[in-house]
């Protein structure tokens, strides 16, 4: 007899909805989470702890990864994050990275589910249609709006996706003075700025308070409970309901399977370093894309010699990312209208505007009709340390200190206000972007670590550059000066998906359309790894929605 009906590995956006739904259905659920269990009262706006000292992230030395980057000459350099100190952890605690997300929420669009049919093949990229359509996921996007708590205001625009309900359940969060500026000036030049939905409560709900506008959202745990983390929105209630147990400090090291190929137990290391096991009828993997792939590869069994669910050899393949470029423009505070300048004195309210006028680009210079992306207009993060520290270098790589440094600080903090943008565009799945087990590097407990190859397709760059140029146009239209932008040369690690793509054909996909492993009856994967393509938006809303969709399938079959 198994101890639990369902054992879930990882407690973030992929794990939370499954735990919540199954516990609500009265199933016995256990969630294994390698991090600790922090609560609202543990979250301070402590920049030093969060930004400079990596609070609530796995150790870089104890738990390294190996990252492979392509050099200019086409060769590859592999380095352990223990030595490079590149941070590829996003938040390791109950609720996962959703504790620290900014909660900019976008749905994918109908065409994102059929990129291959819509735009044709791209040489050197493995673009495929999804095995489900937007209409299959739409009810679950709508469900997330209530279950997680999504605020905002729906406004028609040329690329708006269809909805089954007219508006979002929570009204928008308080607006930054630049929102009106964007509506007016971008609108005047023919762009269609629209309010961005946020996974942030603008009014309280149950135990969760409304947003308190401290200004420190992304990268910080939410002290009010307004942010729709998997913990605050889903797990706390699931645990209170009595059917869900969350075990923090439970680091899963492999899944054990029997001669029939079914998973029988999750093996984990507890907080005291003891090896333990949990048995369940069904297992759900949601450890974030890279770690989920690693765990499958670490779990060969009698029927799975190449690793669990890996008969196709595709586990870890087709990893994708999302964010592509950043830009910024500045406003002289003395030149702004008095009321606007006064309102800008304090951080807190959100700009919450985006442009999707180029979600599809039809430009001869870019070779005709092709997939574009999203321009998110955002207030700069109020973090002071990275901003101040960046000012110590001049344009020639010399250090600036003393009075000149102090003058720069005064200018940056007191004289200007910035408006930034972030570009989200499709990351073309390609053969050089994947997760494997590193042949030699191990974590502090002797377990092989993930080796992530970060190859990007040459066609990503022109789209990112095109969108960044439009972002610069938008900032200038709003009256910004000193506008500049930069295309990322390596993917930001916080938006990662793919690696276990779903599909109908076991030869070309790891999971079936319900996100069950093709070759393992009682194993589901519900974090972002299922996504064959990432869409041109941040994708946590999609991960949440899909996890609820899959949870319903699991309820049906248990």
């Amino acid at each position, binding site marked *: 007899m198994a101890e639990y009906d369902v054992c879930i590995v990882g407690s973030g956006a992929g794990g939370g909805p499954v735990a919540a739904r199954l516990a609500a259905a009265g199933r016995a659920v256990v969630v294994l989470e390698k991090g600790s269990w922090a609560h609202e009262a543990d979250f301070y*706006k402590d920049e*030093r702890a969060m930004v400079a*000292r990596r609070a609530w992230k796995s150790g870089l030395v104890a738990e390294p990864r190996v990252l492979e980057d392509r050099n200019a000459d086409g060769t590859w350099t592999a380095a352990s994050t223990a*030595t490079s100190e590149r941070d590829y952890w996003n938040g390791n605690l109950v609720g996962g990275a959703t504790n620290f997300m900014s909660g900019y929420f976008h749905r994918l669009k109908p065409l994102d589910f059929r990129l291959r049919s819509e735009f044709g093949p791209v040489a050197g990229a493995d673009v495929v249609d999804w095995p489900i359509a937007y209409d299959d996921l739409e009810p679950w996007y709508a469900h997330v709006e209530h279950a997680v708590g999504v605020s905002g205001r729906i406004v028609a625009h040329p690329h708006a996706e269809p909805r089954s309900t007219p508006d979002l359940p929570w009204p928008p969060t308080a607006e930054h003075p630049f929102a009106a500026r964007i509506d007016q000036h971008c609108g005047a030049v023919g762009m269609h700025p629209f309010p961005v939905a946020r996974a942030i409560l603008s009014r309280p709900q149950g135990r969760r308070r409304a947003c308190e506008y401290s200004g420190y959202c992304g990268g910080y745990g939410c002290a009010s409970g307004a942010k729709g983390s998997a913990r605050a929105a889903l797990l706390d209630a699931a645990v209170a309901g009595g059917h869900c147990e969350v075990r923090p400090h439970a680091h899963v090291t492999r899944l054990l399977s029997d001669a029939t190929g079914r998973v029988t137990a999750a093996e984990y290391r507890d907080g005291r370093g003891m090896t333990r096991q949990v048995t369940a009828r069904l297992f759900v993997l949601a450890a974030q894309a890279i770690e989920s792939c690693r765990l499958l590869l670490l779990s060969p069994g009698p029927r799975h010699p190449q690793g669990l669910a890996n008969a196709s050899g595709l586990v870890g393949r087709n990893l994708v990312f999302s964010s592509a470029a950043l830009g910024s423009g500045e406003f002289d505070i003395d030149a702004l209208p008095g009321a606007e300048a006064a309102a800008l004195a304090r951080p807190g309210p959100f700009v919450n505007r985006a442009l999707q006028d180029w979600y599809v680009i039809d430009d001869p210079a870019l070779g005709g009709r092709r997939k574009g992306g999203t321009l998110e207009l955002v207030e700069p993060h*109020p973090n002071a340390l990275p901003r*101040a520290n960046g000012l110590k270098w001049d344009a020639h790589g010399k250090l600036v200190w*003393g009075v000149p440094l102090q003058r720069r600080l005064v200018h940056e903090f007191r004289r200007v206000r910035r408006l930034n943008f972030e570009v989200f565009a499709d990351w073309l799945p390609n053969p050089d972007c994947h997760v494997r087990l590193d042949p030699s590097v191990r974590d502090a407990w002797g377990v092989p670590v993930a080796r992530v190859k970060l190859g990007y397709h040459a066609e990503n760059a022109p789209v990112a550059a095109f969108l960044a140029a439009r972002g610069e146009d938008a900032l200038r239209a709003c009256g910004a000066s000193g506008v500049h932008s930069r295309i990322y040369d390596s993917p930001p690690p916080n938006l990662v998906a793919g690696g276990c793509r779903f599909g109908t054909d076991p030869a070309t996909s790891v999971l079936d359309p319900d996100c069950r492993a093709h070759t393992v009856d009682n194993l589901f994967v519900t974090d972002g790894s299922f996504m064959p393509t990432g869409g041109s938006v941040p994708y946590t809303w999609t991960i949440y929605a899909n996890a609820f969709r899959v949870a319903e399938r699991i309820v049906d079959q248990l």
Partner: protein
Amino acid sequence: MSTAAPGPHDDRVHALLSARRAGCLSRRAFLRGLLAVAAVGHASAPFADIAPHAHGGMEPARFWAVVRAAQAQLFPAGGDAPGSDDVNAAAYLAAVLVDPGVHADEREFIVDGVPLLADFTRERTGREFDVLAGEERETVLRTIENSPVGQYWLSLMIYYVLEAVLADPVYGGNVDRAGWAWLDHHPGFPRPPQGFHATRR
């Protein structure tokens, strides 16, 4: 810290820098490598064979006098700006030097740079760094900056002064929120309680 002119050690320094950039060299190997290069050809450098030592082999009082003087040069009081002393930058750095949340190698590198600065100043000027006038200190620090080792050390010293200016006062700097008040910076809430110390490596 080596001298201003590009010297025979530059190749080694460049090799170290690019290996570090490619992530092939641990912070330890990188910083040790830099210090080893700095020590060569520097008669009085105590780092031919480097052993970590709480104050880089210096009298603690001397060590801190040099640190405070360097910090004051990097972040002077004046106008409405709080100076390094106003934000307790030396005491803040002392806490950083025993903070397990800061890489041990970085802490040792900071410590080991202090006697190098002290010795270099003595060789150049015949006096202690902390008794020099502002302009003389500036000349010494700018000379040091010409070597990658010195530049790296100075960049860390500046960074930790900036932490002392801008981190939450619970960590001992930013006295009476002087840094925040000066820059009109709003820290967000809730703030960490007194005695709080979150750290992770």
